[in-house]
């Protein structure tokens, strides 16, 4: 009888712990990528299209898709177009984050709508001989510059889906280029495949590809950060 009471107590304690954990565990917003990337460069430039019709966006908290070019380091500057589940249309944006946004606040600005069925040039570029200044350009217009990090660094062009993998994407990345140490823009290696995270895939090569929501079978997987 005593043992029985003890085991009831144990079960109740265990349930309390599990319940406590369930209450304490917070929802985190997952990200999925379709990615074309290269290490040790001085800039990235892509002509990024919006689809002709608004993609389906599941109406859940913080449901977004971003299609961008990025400086990939612990601090970053990024530009591209964003679509939130509550947005009526995509917006061109720039984001700046210093040291994973831990010390300085994250800067995020949406400038103007990127009309459906159109394409724009998005560039992130190191400013030569400045030590650490990187700038973002949208359709040739300089938007933001910050003292971020030295060059060369990793750069990428990517579609990024946040919060739910039910969101559909269909984004064309054309003429994806990196800037080399001689300040010359060069196409990404067209023999390299584009990486996608299930259920999102990239079709084409690193220099010209489109991202879409596919199925999870037989897809090359990327290690999630």
């Amino acid at each position: 009888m005593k043992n029985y009471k003890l085991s009831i107590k144990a079960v109740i304690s265990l349930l309390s712990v599990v319940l406590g954990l369930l209450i304490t565990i917070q929802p985190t917003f997952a990200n999925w990528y379709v990615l074309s990337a290269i290490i040790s460069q001085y800039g990235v430039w892509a002509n990024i299209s919006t689809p002709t019709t608004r993609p389906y966006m599941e109406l859940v908290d913080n449901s977004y898709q971003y299609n961008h070019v990025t400086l990939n380091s612990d601090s970053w500057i990024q530009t591209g177009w964003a679509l939130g589940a509550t947005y009526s249309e995509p917006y061109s944006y720039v984001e700046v984050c210093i040291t994973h946004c831990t010390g300085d606040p994250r800067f995020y600005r949406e400038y103007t709508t990127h009309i459906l069925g159109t394409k724009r040039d998005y560039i992130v570029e190191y400013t030569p001989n400045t030590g650490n200044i990187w700038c973002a350009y949208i359709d040739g217009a300089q938007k933001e510059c910050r003292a971020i990090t030295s060059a060369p660094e990793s750069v990428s062009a990517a579609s990024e889906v946040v919060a739910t993998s039910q969101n559909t994407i269909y984004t064309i990345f054309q003429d994806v280029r990196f800037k080399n140490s001689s300040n010359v823009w060069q196409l990404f290696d067209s023999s390299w495949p584009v990486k996608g995270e299930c259920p999102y895939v990239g079709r084409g090569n690193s220099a010209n590809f489109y991202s879409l929501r596919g199925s999870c079978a037989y897809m090359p997987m990327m290690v999630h950060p």
Partner: protein
Amino acid sequence: MSIVKKHLFTALRITALTGICLLGLTMFGNAAPGSPATPNQAVSQLVNTLKAQGVEVKTAEIQKISPLIIAVALSDTHDSMTNAVNIHLARREAAMAYRSGVEVSGIEFSIPDAANPQKWWGQSFFDKNDSEHQRQPFGISALSAEEAAQRLHDVLRKQSPSITIGQITLEESPLAGRYERTLKITAFAPNVGDAAVYPSLIRQEIVSANKGGVNIAMAKVKIINPKGEIILDYFWDEEMRTELSLAAPGLDLGRPNPPTSIKQ
């Protein structure tokens, strides 16, 4: 017309013109509306509007005349969110200067200290297609700030019952002839998950409130956890669609992050 009448008429004309000019100077710094200001007038207008909002300007000068780029150095407040908001106010006033007849193309900013003259350095550039150009300046609101704040309080409490609002106020702009308001909220959240979705709710409610003429241009939100720690320091500029955020680890607002897995 007699000579006396003629002189009287001329004097009246001069008085009226002087009055119009003075009115222009009072409302728009040194530039009359619609007429282009000189670059120096643009700089002093920027400094004056920032000072009126409590932002301490160390130096302000013309960096480039055509197109006009102004360089400002601000004082360090020793609070990173306040520094970022002050920089944004400089960005905002420069971008919005076109509304009073001053075209500023960009701003260079910094909050220098002796050890690092490039601290908080950055540049922002403006374009006629940007969001602030697509909107009309706010007019006089029919709703008092107190009444609007109470309404927002009720809506937010209903929409997000897990968040307890400690304080909510709507502050009027300190600038003459400007009718935009700043929403200030201090709230308490039981966890980071609830805090993470609060900013998007606030942005949505700002849009609906403004449809009813509430005139919210900016929002400053602080969310505190049960331990009394600030887990989210958040700023939103509705007219410039600009966000600044400082979040506790694990609190994700759904903004993009570059993938870390590519570092081979």
